[in-house]
Every structure is written in structure tokens, then in C-alpha cells.
């Protein structure tokens, strides 16, 4: 039988359900999320972090703004005792999701699992705030 440290690390799967259609929200809306954690195969989890945040993508360094954050260390609230969870938060008025040319702003829900074996696993689920169309370069540049 293999020792725990020699085992291949488990690859959990986290399914997230948004309460909004097509993961589309308006500024100020209430975001509700339910998630289910699968595939931990008995590897002990010491903490779960839930966050709602925006980050930038593109040419610049990545910036990050956390709107909602909750860390849970109660083992009765996590696998194998409890495999599902939910949280909700009222979304802010800004920033809105933006698909620019060299600057993009994305919103996402992250569920991060911290295992006893000093590693973590993060699952990221993008959603959209607002209805800003993607930026296009002016005709003179194309």
C-alpha cells in the first residue's frame, strides 16, 4: 500500500451554479452561487475560501480587487462531511466586465481548497457584470 505522501495528488472538481441566467448580472444585482465539491477521495481539507473578485487581463500586470471573501475552517462544513455550499453577495456598481484591446476586466467566483498536505486547489468561474461590448480599434489602426 502506498504512503499518503507517495500518492498522486487528487484532482478535485468543483461545480458551480450561478443563480443568474447565462452568468449575466447588472451592477448592484444580488449574486447567488451554489457549489459542489467532488473527487477529493478522502484527502483531508483544512480550509475553504470563497471569493467574488475582479481581475485585469491583457498587456499590463494583473490587478485584482476582492469584493467578497469568506474563509471557512470548520471541518463539518467541508468534504467529506459536507460536499455542497452556497454564498451570495450584492454586486458593486463597478467595475463592469470589459473586453478591451490591451486591458480587460473580468469578474469571477473562486472556490479555493486548502489540503492538509500543504497544497491548494482553486476553481475559477467567470461571470459578467454589465453589457459593455468588446472594444475595437478605430479604423485608422486596422
Amino acid at each position, binding site marked *: 500500500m502506498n504512503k499518503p505522501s507517495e500518492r498522486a495528488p487528487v484532482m478535485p472538481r468543483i461545480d458551480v451554479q450561478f443563480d443568474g441566467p447565462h452568468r449575466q448580472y447588472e451592477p448592484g444585482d444580488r449574486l447567488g452561487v451554489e457549489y459542489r465539491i467532488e473527487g477529493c477521495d478522502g484527502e483531508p481539507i483544512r480550509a475553504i475560501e470563497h471569493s467574488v473578485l475582479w481581475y485585469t487581463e491583457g498587456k499590463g500586470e494583473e490587478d485584482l480587487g476582492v469584493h467578497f*471573501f469568506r474563509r471557512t475552517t470548520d471541518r463539518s462544513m467541508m468534504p467529506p462531511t459536507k460536499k455542497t455550499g452556497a454564498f451570495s453577495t450584492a454586486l*458593486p456598481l463597478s467595475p463592469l466586465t470589459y473586453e478591451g484591446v490591451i486591458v480587460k476586466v473580468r469578474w469571477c467566483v473562486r472556490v479555493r481548497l486548502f489540503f492538509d498536505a500543504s497544497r491548494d486547489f482553486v476553481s475559477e468561474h467567470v461571470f459578467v457584470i454589465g453589457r*459593455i461590448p468588446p472594444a475595437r480599434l478605430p479604423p485608422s489602426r486596422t
Partner: protein
Amino acid sequence: MRLPRLYAKKRGHRRTGAREWGAFGDGLFHGILLAAGLFFGALLLSGVAAPEWRINHEFRESRGTVLAKGLARTTVVDPTGTVLSSWRPCLLLRYSVDETVQESWSHGPASQNTSDRAAALRRLAAWTLGAETICWYDPAAPQTVVLQRGYNWWLWLLSLLLPGALVLIGGSGLVRGLRAWGRSEEYRASSAGLSEMLDPLAQPALAAPGYPAVPVWDDLVNSPGTLLRYRLPIESPENWTLVGFGLFALLWNAVVVVLAVGAGLDLLGGRIDWWLFALLVPFLGVGIGGIVLFVRSLVFATAIGPTQLEISDHPLIPGRRYDVLLAQGGTGTFQTLTLTLELEEQATFRQGTDTRTEHLVVWKQPVAGFRDVTVAADARLENRASIEIPANAMHSFTSAHNTVRWRLVVRGSPTRWPAFCRTFPVVVFPPEAPVTSRPAAVVATHDGSGSAELSP
């Protein structure tokens, strides 16, 4: 054991570095700085500060008789092989230590040494053989006697400032690294406070109250307009060029003056240092060039008259129309003069050891344009137009390294001067967002027992 990878996931156009290696390098760098600060601090404290402190606090006072006097010479050979000598007056003293008589040459701190032997001799001549003087001896080593007490403040300052700066930079970097160790980026981002103090440069710009990542606009509405509500502040790249040329000319010519004074004193003393003169000629040429560039930029900046832009309201809301008033002063003819509304993306990124910023205009709309228009000193050009921010436009956005900004841009081509570009930033809010409303409470919780939420 598998080592962490050098590169992690790819984001956009760039591949990000592995967090583990980054943290290791950051910790190593700051650890070396901290160790160097502690080492040099200990060296300076034990070699300079502690002996001086002991002289002032632990040495005992006595009266001594001057038996002999002389100059103590200290010789130092620098790395280029040059021998440097310095002199310090010292006296052979007879003094009493706990009812026993002690004879010893006086000691003194290295700061009393002088490279001017004649000055040291003059100081020595002030002492008379057989005279009595107050001296202080070390109770632990009575043969160590000094004639002066007091502190060298610049040495104390040096011993505190240099190692102190290293300890501060290295220590704060290490604390920052240790605070981040084992924590997710979401946890770090949500627990602000100490991190802002430890790394102020990495913090995002101030955001409008209730609108995260929308820049504040207070500075844009503090000037009333003459015809419309606000006069927008100008952001002119030419002004920064002017400041840059001015600073360069000032600093460079200060160096030239120092060199020229040295060369002049040599000439007056009957010596000619050909190396100094050879260095002075190209330095003088660059200095004159700097002054010419500065004066030229100053003439360009002042010769074209001032541009003013007024707006009927601010901040701007997508889907609404606003009046703008363009006013161009000065004299002369402009081949073209245009006003455009633009949306610009700005991204700051590191490339090797450089930090670069890329700008890209992703949307623009002409607002007003003129050809062959003449402006007189007593009649400035004034044009009223209206602008509309598209209903589904992106709002102004700012974070530490990324910006989306709206601006009104005036570009002109005068007949007698080079073309110019003057920018007037504006702030655009999210579409149809009520300006007076506040967003829902931002929640950040760190509970150890369950899932309670803390609302501010």
C-alpha cells in the same frame, strides 16, 4: 522531489512567473539587504558609536601633566596604490589612576585626524610641556587616555541612516513575504492595512466613493468655467518635456560649474590639469545644448496661446449629452485645430528590469475641427459643441497597473510652430448609475468556526 516550475499560467499576452520562485527570490533579496544592514550597523556601532559612548559615559576624569608631545601619523594605501597620510596631535600624559601614577600617550577618535600636517602642528603647538590638563582614562584599561569628550553627530547619523535604511527595506520586504506565505491572493487582497503600509507603490489609485476602480474626479471640478459649469484642467505632454529639459539643463550645468571652478582654481594656482580641461569641453557642449533645448521648448510652450476647455457637467454618464466650449488664445494661424473625444487604454508591465507603459486609443469621435483659422490677441477662438458618451461605453477604470480613461484632446498645427497636443481628462461613470447612490456593502470575512459574514 520536484522543484516548482519557473513559469506558471499564461495570462493574456504574457506568461506569468511561478509564485514559489518569485517568493523565494524576493525573500532572498530582502534577506540579504536585512543581513547587510545588520552587519554594517553592528560594525559601525561597535567600531564608532560604542567607543565614543564609552568615553562619554564610562571613562573617569583625572588631571594629567603633559610630559611630551608629537604627531601620530596614520598611513592608508588605497586600491590604486596611492599612499594617503593623516596626522593627529597626541600628548604623553602623567595622570593618577586610583592613587597610582600612570604615563601614557593620549588616544583620540579617527575623526580628529587631518591630512593637513601643518594644521596638526599648529594644534600641537597650543599645548605646553609641563602644563596640566583634564583627561579621561578607561577604568578597564587605564593606559587608554583621551583629552576630549563629546559626540561626532555625523558619524552617529551615518551609522544610523545607512544600515537603518537597509534594515528597513529588507525587514519590511521580509515581513511582506512572510505575511503572504501560504495565503491565497484573494486573502491578501481582502486583508488590506499593513500591506498598504509595507508596499505603498503597489496600491491602486484612489477610487470614487461607492464606485470601486472608478477614479476620483475632485481635481477635475475645482475650477469654474466662464460660460459653462467647469473648466477642465489641462494635461499637456509638452509641459512634462519642458520640465524634463529644464531639470536636465539645471543639473548638468551645475556639474559643469563645479568642474569649471576646479579648473579655474588650478589655473590661478599656476597648474593646468589637462585631463580636467579635456573633460570640461564636451561637458560644456552638452550643457549649452541642454540650455538651448530648454529655451526652445519654453518658447514653443509659451508662443502658442493657451487652450481652455469648459464642460457643462462632470462626471459624465453614458448616454447623456454635454456641452463643451473650446477656447484657443494666442496669435497666428492654425492650419488645423481639432477637438476629439477619445477612450484610451493604458497598461503598465515589467519587461526584464524595465517598467513600461503602453497606451492605445480604442475609440475616438471628432467633436470640432477647423482649417486655416486665425487667432488674434484681442479675439480668441471660441467654439461651442456637444459630446455624447455612447450608452454602452466602458466607464473610466483605474487600478495599480491598468487604466481605461476618457479624455478630450485638442490637436493643432500652427503655421509658424510645431504641432501640439493638449489633453483634458474626464471621468465617465458606469452607464445609468445614479451618482448619489452607494453600492452594497463589501464583505470580507475570516472566520475560524463556520461561515458568519461581517458587514462593515
